């Protein structure tokens, strides 16, 4: 039985092996045709489907089903005997394709692992339809539709899903159809196929519906780091993968994490995650071409803190905190045009970890490093010392706001520190989430009242607010924009001439679990497999689903 099946599999595969050899030979001696690999991928999908569908084709053609079923072999063993040679042939062809892919992957539609999973998925699904479907073309289209459909469904539900998990989940989900087929085949007999189909096809359809439903229920998009550029590009960084979507529905996928650091015109400075989590590199992404324009290698093992606020500047040159291996070494990275300057931090932080570079103080330049409990001032040579204990800190030019447990003090460095404002009582800083700006104004909650603290003027003003502001940042006009969130309502207000003016109120249609992020360019509400973008500029109510 096995010998005959092997012969048949070899006969079926021979033409494909021949084609693969011709392609290899062709590629070796001529220029790479961009259509060759996609054609080959489609052809292989056809083969995988045929290999599965033709499981009982010989019995159908020869009328040998009665003979086959009368043999003293259990149904499951019979299925295994028929399936094993095909599985081997399908695997060998896949490995053969792997060799070609390795050499000429440039033009392939899909990465090898992804293709391999879809290929196996098509095969398994075709096996499950081998008795029920008489038409091969029908089988091919159904299996391709379901396989690619499930694959796309998963991607749609969770854009953060890794290629490996995506492929494996697709294959394993579709393998349930093959398991069902095997179970039903145990009771397969010589009655007309309609008898088998009556009991099998509805269960198969139900199973696939359950698979899709469970996929929908269980697949949750992992929240990553997001960023909305001023042009409306939405960047989603999932650590191992970055997806950039445009307002027009365009989509570019990068197979590495890409955390936005700074946007300038049409370029975005990003921290590029290295494979295997071995730190970051710095790169400049061109938002028009969606290509990495320039890439700088960073010292091995160093990575960026992925918060836009975590940035300082020296004479307009952006500076970033780099954390090294085991959170025990730090460097300040200063970007001067195309040139990088690294300042190794020479301070001993003890058991504490630095998690914030909170700006710089000018004249002379000192970097403000904060561990969460202690504040350090570091000179440009990397040396420095602890300045004081604090609960929070923020800086603006030569001014430093230090939050204490019962008192908050605004210092001016000229160059020695001098307190210019003291606020008694409990003061809590409202964090600027993803503001992207180093602002001269800080929103604080002072004795349960929201107040705006102007670092430049050294003044404090009350803000009438019923709810906690979710985000604030300076807009293009230099006014402070505050975003308030209340369930499905997003209110954007502007602080103009010491008054709060409502700019727009938007309502999100996303229900249930959602995540709202406010960016300098707008607000994005993330739901499961769905998102809404509300842009501040051009006019707030004109875009997204705002009302």
């Amino acid at each position, binding site marked *: *039985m*096995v*010998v*005959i099946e092997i012969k048949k599999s070899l006969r079926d595969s021979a033409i494909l092996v021949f084609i693969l050899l011709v392609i290899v030979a062709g590629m070796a001696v001529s220029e790479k045709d961009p259509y060759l690999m996609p054609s080959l991928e489609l052809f292989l999908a056809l083969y995988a489907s045929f290999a599965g569908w033709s499981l009982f084709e*010989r*019995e159908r*053609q*020869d*009328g*040998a*089903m*009665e*003979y086959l*079923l*009368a*043999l*003293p*072999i*259990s149904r499951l*063993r019979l299925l295994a005997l028929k399936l094993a040679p095909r599985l081997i042939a399908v695997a060998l062809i896949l490995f053969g394709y792997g060799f070609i892919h390795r050499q000429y992957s440039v033009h392939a539609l899909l990465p090898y692992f992804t293709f391999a999973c879809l290929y196996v998925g098509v095969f398994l699904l075709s096996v499950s339809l081998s008795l029920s479907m008489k038409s091969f073309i029908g089988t091919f289209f159904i299996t391709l539709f379901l396989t690619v459909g499930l694959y796309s469904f998963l991607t749609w539900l969770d854009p953060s899903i890794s290629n490996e998990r995506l492929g494996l989940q697709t294959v394993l989900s579709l393998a349930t159809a093959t398991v069902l087929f095997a179970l039903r085949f145990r*009771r*397969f*007999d*010589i*009655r*007309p196929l309609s*008898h088998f189909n009556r009991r099998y096809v509805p269960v198969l359809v139900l199973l696939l519906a359950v698979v899709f439903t469970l996929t929908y229920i269980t697949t949750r998009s992992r929240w990553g780091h997001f960023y909305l550029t001023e042009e409306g590009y939405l960047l989603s960084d999932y650590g191992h993968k970055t997806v950039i979507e445009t307002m027009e529905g365009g989509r570019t996928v990068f197979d590495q994490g890409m955390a936005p650091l700074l946007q300038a015109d049409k370029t975005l400075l990003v921290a590029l995650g290295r494979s295997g989590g071995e730190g970051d590199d710095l790169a400049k992404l061109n938002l028009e071409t969606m290509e990495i324009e320039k890439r700088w290698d960073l010292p091995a093992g160093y990575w960026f803190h992925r918060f836009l606020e975590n940035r300082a500047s020296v004479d307009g040159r952006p500076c970033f905190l780099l954390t090294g291996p085991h959170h025990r070494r730090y460097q300040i990275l200063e970007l001067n045009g195309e040139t990088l300057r690294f300042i190794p931090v020479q301070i001993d932080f003890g058991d504490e970890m630095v998690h914030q570079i909170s700006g710089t103080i000018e004249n002379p330049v000192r970097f403000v490093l904060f561990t969460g409990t202690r504040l350090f001032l570091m000179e440009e040579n990397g040396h420095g010392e602890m300045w004081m204990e604090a609960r929070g800190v923020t800086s603006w030019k030569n001014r430093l706001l230090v939050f204490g447990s019962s008192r908050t003090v605004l210092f001016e460095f000229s160059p020695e520190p001098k307190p210019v404002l003291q606020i008694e009582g409990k003061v809590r800083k409202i964090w600027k989430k993803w503001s992207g700006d180093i602002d001269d104004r800080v929103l604080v909650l002072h004795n349960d009242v929201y107040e705006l603290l102007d670092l430049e003027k050294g003044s404090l003003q009350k803000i009438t607010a019923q709810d906690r502001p979710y985000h604030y940042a300076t807009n293009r006009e230099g006014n402070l924009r505050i975003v308030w969130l209340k369930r499905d309502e997003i209110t954007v207000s502007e602080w103009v001439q010491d008054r709060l003016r409502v700019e727009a109120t938007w309502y999100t249609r996303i229900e249930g679990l959602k995540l709202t992020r406010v960016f300098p360019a707008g607000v994005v509400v993330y739901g499961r497999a769905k998102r809404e973008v509300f842009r501040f500029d051009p006019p707030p109510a004109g875009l997204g689903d705002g009302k």
Partner: protein
Amino acid sequence: MIEVSDLTVRYGRKRAVDALSITVRQGESVLLAGANGSGKTTLLRSMCGLLIHRGKPVRVDGRTLNHRSRRRIAYIPASISFYDSLRVGEAIRLHASCFQDFTYRPPAEFEIERHRRVGTLSKGEKTLFILSLALATHPNYLLIDDVIHFLDPHLRELFLKTILGLIEEQQLGLLMAAQSAFDIEGILDRVVVLDKGKIVLDEAVERLKGSFVRVYSDRLAANLPVVFTRDWGDFKEFFLYPYSDRMETGGRVDFLTLSEIVHATIGGKYGGH
């Protein structure tokens, strides 16, 4: 012994076999007769595991029928189903690979070139070839569906001779479905007639031949066991079973051959009685 008890097989709503019980012993040869659609093929397929049914399982020599006990049963389907694209040699090797005990010995006057494709054999040749394969596995029971009519007189003789030899030598149990007992009467011990999935007659051949009669008469006494009647206009044929010579029929009584009995039984069904 193959035991079938209370077997019911449905095709959709239709009951092909309805609460049927039958046994076939080793060394016994049984004719399974019945009109088209009476359930012969369904019964044979159920007895060799080709049809899976709910209810009491078929038992073979005291064991439930499964893929292991199926080795004791050889089955020749009416479709003479086989891999037509295989060569004869390959077919023999394929069949041998599925059985531990396999000795291919075709009848002396029947040898097929091994390079020929099975599909190129005539129906008669293919039937005899499949029979040879079936017997090469040394079965205890041989189930043959209605294939005898595929064979020409020469092959039929060869076919029957081979089977007869095995019944005597190896105590082979034979259950053969056929529309007619012509030519095979000599090897049969018992006749089972099916109608609408039920057994309507199950009798040893000798007893059947001595108790199944045809009476030509205008009318018969009401207490006689008339199985069915044929009306020819001028006269009527009454078929009586079981008949004894003490019965007063008032007409000519003909004892029938087995072939005639089978024919009459099936014909009687079509006669609407």
